[in-house]
């Protein structure tokens, strides 16, 4: 058991595994995502209320979904960093934080684009929008702290503490924002109820969510590999690897 754990933490071992996994992740992810999006954008039926404008859901929902679960994944990795000092875990946190930030931004942006025709405004201080915006701030904080500390080890551990503090706060922020919203303005706008969606709509949605997860896996592997190469630049296996690629 500890053997596997130890192996998991070895950057060299991970590098090899990631190299074999990545093509599969990319191909499967791209296939699912393309199917989901093309199906959703071209073949899925129109919404009776929103017409074609609802189709942005096939991009909006997957990115919002991922944006939140990336933070959870980061929190798990942060815990592993602090408890077991596993090198790979903190590589994961630093490598993935910008991806999470981009996904959150994408969710907010597509939400705004969707909001314009549906709600008639780019932005409202709706509970969901606001808590996503705060999630974006949390991502920015993680990235800023990671960049500010030059020593890799303490940078990783400081970031891990911040991520964990953030994850304790996320439910609090979410519920307080929801309550704040209901306090101040009645819920004038609501997203169309999800369960009432017909299968021709939710199947492509599910496909694109799964596809984006796989693409995220691929991207995480790629970014982690880059970070590992930069970090382990002085070790022998990296030098050998680089030489082998050059020849």
């Amino acid at each position: 058991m500890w053997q596997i754990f130890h192996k998991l933490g070895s950057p060299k071992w991970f590098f090899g595994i990631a190299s074999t996994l990545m093509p599969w992740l990319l191909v499967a992810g791209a296939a699912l995502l393309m199917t989901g999006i093309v199906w959703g954008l071209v073949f899925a039926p129109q919404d009776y209320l929103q017409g074609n404008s609802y189709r942005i859901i096939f991009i909006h929902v997957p990115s919002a979904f991922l944006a939140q679960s990336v933070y959870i994944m980061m929190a798990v990795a942060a815990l592993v960093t602090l408890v077991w000092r596993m090198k790979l875990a903190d590589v994961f946190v630093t490598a993935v934080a910008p991806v999470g930030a981009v996904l959150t931004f994408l969710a907010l942006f597509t939400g705004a684009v969707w909001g314009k025709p549906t709600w008639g405004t780019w932005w409202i201080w709706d509970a969901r929008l606001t808590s996503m915006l705060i999630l974006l701030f949390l991502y920015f904080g993680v990235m800023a702290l990671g960049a500010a500390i030059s020593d890799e080890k303490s940078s990783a551990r400081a970031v891990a503490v911040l991520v964990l503090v953030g994850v304790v706060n996320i439910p609090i922020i979410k519920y307080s924002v929801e309550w704040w919203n209901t306090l101040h303005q009645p819920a004038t706008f609501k997203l169309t109820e999800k369960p009432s969606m017909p299968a021709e709509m939710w199947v492509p949605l599910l496909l694109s969510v799964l596809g984006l997860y796989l693409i995220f896996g691929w991207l995480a592997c790629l970014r982690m590999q880059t970070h590992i190469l930069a970090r382990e630049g002085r070790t022998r296996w990296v030098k050998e690897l680089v030489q082998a690629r050059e020849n």
Partner: protein
Amino acid sequence: MTMASETKLPVRTSEESVSALSAMKAVFSRDLKTAFRQPQDLLNPLLFFVMVVTLFPLGVSPEVSFLREAGSGILWVAALLSVLLSLDHLYRHDFDDGTLEQLVLQPQPLFLLVLAKSLAHWVLTGLPLVMLAPVLGVMVHLEGNSVAILCLTLLIGTPVLSLIGSIGAALTLGLRSAGVLLSLLIIPLYIPVLIFGTGTVMAASESAPVGGQLALMGAFLVLALTLAPFASAAALRISLSNS
């Protein structure tokens, strides 16, 4: 050296051990003492608080209706910002002169000492803000009841700000441009306190019951009291090993 002996840092000798509580007391009273030697540093966050509040009537509108509506929010935001500005002092001096390393080396649990430091920080910044708030509350035309509730929310809320802020201060210790970074890290975490702080005053001004919201703020305080010192202590250890 002289300062350390004067202000009775908990010093460990091989025979006698200092109880955690008396170590906390020592840290607490030492922080108060050293702070009162530079009274200007204590005054600055308060002046900042007053000046930020002054900006709103000048910048937005001096009308009574607007100020009454927005007053609690203005005061809360200003209080939040001035606590944020004062956080840099929480560990900075002790970090520079090496006191902090001695604290980390104490046999008493570090999180308790951190808790004592955070409480001292609150007494030095949060509490004066609470005492100043009624004056400013009247200046932004809040009604009597609202002013009282505002002070109560600040009384419960500002310790939370100090406690959460101590995590950020510990994380950014010894970094270049720590001030801006600290704000970036901490502001998102302050949002729930702000929401409930102003929400309670709003509810009070509409003469709605506020007990539930005050209880929730109390829950925030308990949560911050129990969890934040652990996170700050961990962050302090990381920052000190870094330098």
